[in-house]
């Protein structure tokens, strides 16, 4: 509440009014004060000259009486001053400085001592005057007069009251005029500010402010309207282009998904359809080997065996393609998983089905991720199979699975002691049908890591690898935390 009272919170109107009024108040005060000062000076001068005139007359009158020491006559002369109410004291001194006649209106102090050079002029509440009484240039005595200044004070007081009353009336009139005139300035600004606030709040760019006059405020209003007009047009254009863009995106998306679906359907049917002739080749190849194997010579059996091996490889390829297309198409079923348990299961299967190499597998306990169980199983099956496969030529196999949690992600690292690869081919690693080893070195379809990549991407994560030749390889799968929650 106190905040509201501070200057910067005051409305412009009040500030303008206050500004005008403070200036006019200052002006009026200065004028009134100077009038009072000038009036005071003038009145003092007037009073002084009046008293001097009176004194001059009286000194002229009393010169003879002083000379002839006629105190009675002197008393008569100065008693005429009784009629002037403000005269406090009158003293007449003879030539030797003795008081010969005296008038005291309020029985105050006696006459001053002439030897002590009494104060004259405006001192305190009195005006004092000492004039010599002269005759033909000879000083025959002195005339001392002391006048109260209450008339002056009262006059000035009345003058102050009148002056300041007039000042207040003028100030009120000025306030009324200022109130009227400040609207000329503050109204357009107020409307401008209101319009700007409404536009900011409601985003309604059709609002315009009325334009007053041809001054800066008028220009401001015109500029404001033009600016809002421009913004309105641009906004319209942006909205239009956004709609257009959205339409285009929707079109493209539907086209793309249609193409994708067709492609997937194609790859699925191709894989599916390829399998039948392949099964026929494999079946009849087997039948040929079993039934007519003894009729073939060594070379013939070798060819047959190569055909069957190729068939098996092709079957593997087709399976791989099917898996790949499945992980691409399948709807995801997200839930919390214990990855450690899943990896243990996969490793157990691998131990049972493959060679009897001494194997040390270390899997960190309690790695928990969120995702589709079947897809993740496919991905980690591929990764572990790779690790298994590329370590098969070692004396012993060592696989470490660890997890590293960062605030925004969890990264699972699968480290093996296999043959590794050259980092300059790392780009090709996750591309389908790209292989870094020949089938004679290590068998494979070239689809495994592509499948892993697809699965991890569908979980909004990323997969990358680090290795050098004969030093083993490490594959990292990074899941974002947003996916985990």
């Amino acid at each position, binding site marked *: 509440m106190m905040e509201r009272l501070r200057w910067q919170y005051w409305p412009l109107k009040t500030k303008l009014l206050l500004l005008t009024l403070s200036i006019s108040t200052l002006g009026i005060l200065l004028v009134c004060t100077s009038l009072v000062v000038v009036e005071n000076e003038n009145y003092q001068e007037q009073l002084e000259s009046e008293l001097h005139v009176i004194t001059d007359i009286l000194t002229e009158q009393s010169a*003879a009486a002083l*000379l*002839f020491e006629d105190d009675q006559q002197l008393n008569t002369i100065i008693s005429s001053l009784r009629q002037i109410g403000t005269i406090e004291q009158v003293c007449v001194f003879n030539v030797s400085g003795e008081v010969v006649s005296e008038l005291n209106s309020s029985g105050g102090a006696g006459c001053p001592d002439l030897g002590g050079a009494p104060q004259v002029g405006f001192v305190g509440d009195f005006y004092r005057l000492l004039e010599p009484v002269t005759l*033909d240039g000879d000083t025959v005595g002195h005339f001392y007069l002391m006048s109260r200044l209450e008339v002056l004070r009262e006059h000035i007081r009345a003058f102050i009251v009148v002056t300041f009353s007039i000042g207040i009336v003028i100030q009120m009139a000025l306030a009324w005029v200022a109130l009227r005139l400040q609207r000329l300035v503050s109204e357009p600004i107020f409307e401008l500010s209101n319009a700007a606030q409404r536009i900011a709040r409601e985003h309604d760019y059709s609002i315009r402010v009325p334009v007053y006059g041809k001054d800066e405020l008028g220009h401001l209003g015109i500029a404001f309207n033009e600016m809002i007009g421009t913004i309105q047009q641009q906004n319209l254009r942006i909205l239009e282009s956004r709609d257009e863009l959205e339409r285009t995106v929707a079109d493209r998306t539907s086209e793309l998904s249609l193409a994708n679906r067709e492609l997937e359907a194609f790859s699925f049917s191709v894989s599916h359809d390829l399998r039948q002739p392949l099964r026929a080749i494999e079946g009849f190849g087997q039948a040929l080997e079993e039934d007519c194997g003894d009729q073939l010579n060594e070379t013939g059996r070798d060819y047959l065996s190569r055909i069957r091996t190729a068939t098996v490889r092709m079957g593997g390829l087709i399976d791989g393609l099917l898996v790949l297309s499945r992980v691409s198409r399948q709807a995801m079923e997200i839930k919390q998983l214990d990855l450690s348990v899943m990896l243990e299961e996969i490793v157990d299967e691998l131990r049972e089905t493959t060679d009897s190499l001494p194997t040390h597998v270390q899997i960190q306990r309690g790695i928990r991720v969120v995702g589709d169980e079947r897809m993740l199983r496919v991905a980690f099956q591929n990764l572990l199979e790779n690790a298994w496969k590329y370590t098969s030529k070692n004396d012993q196999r060592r696989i470490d699975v660890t997890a590293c949690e960062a605030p925004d992600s969890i990264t699972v690292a699968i480290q093996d002691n296999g043959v590794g690869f050259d980092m300059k081919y790392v780009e090709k690693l996750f591309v389908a049908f790209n292989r870094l080893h020949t089938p004679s070195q290590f068998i494979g379809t070239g689809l495994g890591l592509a499948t892993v990549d697809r699965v991890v991407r569908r979980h909004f994560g990323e997969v990358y690898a680090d290795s050098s030749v004969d030093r083993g390889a490490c594959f990292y799968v990074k899941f974002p935390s947003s996916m985990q929650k």
Partner: protein
Amino acid sequence: MKFLIALLLWSLVGTANASVRSEYEVKAAFLYNFTRFITWSDPLAEAPEMRICVLGQDPFGDVLQQLNGRVSQGRPLALAYPGSLSDSDGCQVLFIGSARSRDLPAITEYAHERQMLTISEIPDFVEEGGIIGYVKEGNVIRFEINLQAAQRAGIHVNSRLLELAVRVIR
């Protein structure tokens, strides 16, 4: 205690009395002051000096000597003691001693023809035709003026002086 205060007051009065001037000192001062409020209508009388003559016995003693050399209306005063009335020609102010009270009308007439301001302490001097006469009211010295005589003599008396006179014969 009361006695002491009375004694103190008495001594104060005593010293005050000491400063009071003698009757003739006052009269001499008045004589000088009269000359300052009087104007003579005849320009021939405007001699370079103003002669003040004392006719008959001089009651002032040497008090009057103080006037010698003083200036009145721009003219220095000069004292003269004429032996007889005829010797007093050329005087502007004539003080008539008490001893000459018997032939007063003749003296005033003679003096006024020659534009002299006649002053005297003779009682009823103004009624006898003199212009300014001293009177004593208690202890205070005052004066009377015969304006008719002054006008006849061609002497103008300042109104301020008239205001102060005890009596003015018009």
